[in-house]
């Protein structure tokens, strides 16, 4: 147990350093931007009609008159005390905005993540077992098509079919328009989240299915499967006892590595369905040069990605006894 704690501790320190790097990189990138937040948010015409004093006030509000080093250090100081600053566009604490947005995005992403993982594993195993036959060709064709399809276009298609033509699902937003927040039922929320979640799940399948298929073919060609067959083991028991664990290891890596993809996908999907989640907030913050919010979202999503990698590293030991023993011997 001790070595696993040490392992996790080392990883956590590395993660913290990487997060620091991420925040610095994001800050430098936004800071280097030639786009003037005053021009984009207030507009040239409005600026022209303002007095010098008003413009100075605006500059102070958007932070364009503070030197970059001081700006970053004060942001970093705030973070260390648990204060992520105030969003310039939403005029609310960044932590609060992210909290609200993440709450509505989380279920969307979690559902899509779990569903695409399970479906991808099953499809990959099915394809690998039927190598060269029609189920394999079908699954491979599906994966090729879906990985060549832009997520947002798929979202648009589903929107046209289910919302505009069939009218089954609403056009957008996470709750019905013009209703009191108290009277919104759980069913309403679900109905508004179905299409975005479906889009994300459909696209998430391809990568994991293709890799599982390759691995499955390797395993089925191995000597131990040949021996198991020679012993007369049934197909089902071979699948259950020999294939599943071996296939699970790379699948877990891929699945946790796909967190980054799912967040990226949710940015696009939320934009199409105007679903008020974290991704949409990121786009708004980016277009409006809202530095504190953009930094906050980048750091929080990066933490999620690193957390996923850490979880995968820790899970290896649980799934693969060889890794567990190898680590304890050191």
């Amino acid at each position, binding site marked *: 147990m001790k070595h696993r704690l040490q392992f996790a501790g080392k990883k956590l320190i590395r993660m913290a350093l990487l997060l620091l790097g991420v925040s610095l990189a994001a800050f430098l990138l936004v800071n280097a931007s030639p*786009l003037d937040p005053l021009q984009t948010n207030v507009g040239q015409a409005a600026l022209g009609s303002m007095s010098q004093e008003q413009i100075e006030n605006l500059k102070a509000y958007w932070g364009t008159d503070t030197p970059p080093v001081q700006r970053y250090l004060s942001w970093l100081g705030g973070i260390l005390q648990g204060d992520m600053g105030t969003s310039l566009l939403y005029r609310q604490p960044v932590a609060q905005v992210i909290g609200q947005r993440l709450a509505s995005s989380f279920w969307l992403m979690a559902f899509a993540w779990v569903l695409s993982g399970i479906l991808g594993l099953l499809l990959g195993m099915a394809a690998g077992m039927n190598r060269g036959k029609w189920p394999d060709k079908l699954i491979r064709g599906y994966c*090729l098509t879906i990985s060549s399809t832009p997520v947002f276009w798929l979202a648009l298609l589903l929107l046209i079919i289910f919302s505009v033509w069939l009218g089954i699902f609403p056009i957008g937003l996470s709750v019905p328009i013009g209703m009191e927040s108290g009277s919104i039922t759980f069913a309403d929320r679900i109905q508004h989240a179905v299409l975005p979640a479906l889009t994300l799940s459909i696209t998430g399948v391809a990568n994991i299915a293709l890799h599982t298929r390759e691995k499955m073919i390797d395993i089925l060609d191995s000597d131990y499967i040949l021996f198991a067959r020679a012993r007369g083991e049934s197909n089902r028991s071979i699948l259950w006892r020999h294939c599943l664990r071996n296939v699970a290891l790379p699948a877990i890596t891929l699945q946790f590595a796909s967190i980054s993809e799912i967040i990226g996908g949710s940015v696009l999907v939320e934009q199409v369905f105007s679903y008020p989640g974290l991704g949409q907030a990121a786009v708004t913050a*980016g277009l409006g040069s809202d530095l504190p919010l953009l930094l906050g979202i980048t750091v929080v999503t990066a933490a999620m990605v690193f957390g996923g990698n850490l979880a995968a590293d820790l899970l290896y030991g649980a799934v693969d006894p060889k890794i567990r023993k190898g680590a304890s011997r050191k």
Partner: protein
Amino acid sequence: MNHHWNNRRSAVFLVCITGLLLAAVTAAGIILSGQAMETDFTQKNLTPSLSHLFGTDWMGRDMLSRTLTGLSMSIRIGALTAAVSSILALILGTAAATLGRKVDAVISWCIDLCMGIPHILLVMLISLACGKGFLGVVAGVSLSHWPSLARVIRSEVLQLRQAPYIQAAEKLGVSRLNIAKRHILIHLLPQFLTGLILQFPHAVLHEASITFLGFGLSPEQPAIGVILSESMRYLTTGKWWLALFPGLALVLVVILFAITGEHLRRLLNPANVHQ
């Protein structure tokens, strides 16, 4: 039985066909770029017909020529960004594997850093730093795609350096530069070319996505991302063709790239020569 020989030959044939097709789309887009901007208000919002295969939009612009121009732009940006990011990956991957532990640590850290930020967010941030537009897209896509290929190349070079023939060459007193040129780079070439071609589809998709979100090419340009984000405003009024055909065309182009890449990978892999 020359069945196996045919396998390779048909791959070459297929690669040529898809290559020609992509070149034709690129050329058609450049030729039609003038027509794509022409507005004709007597012809607006037409459903697809023989004279306008993809229909027309609310300004009476022909969607087919707009789509082709957009695709052509996507392909050219894809080629440029894939090339830049692969060369970056080659340089950084080799540097990490050959220039000592400190350089390796720094480059590996950068790789982890870039892979930690969700891809779309990273492209958004880089594009913002370059002031959006054409430069923003190109910088964003090419500066965010190198890490995974760099990692592959790094481990490949590390492995190669342990290979007996390279160690023997070192002991024989062959200079480092010569080893790099005659043994390592030649060996990396197939890996590198495959990586380059497989970057294409990603690059094209990310270009379209980032433009769709409003961080890429400017709205006046007929890019696929722009066409699709404009179409969103007209979906509820039943103008499905504005979104369907341009998107479908993009999917087809990306699939063509993916198939070409897959076949080229097999052709370039020395282990597959006997097939």
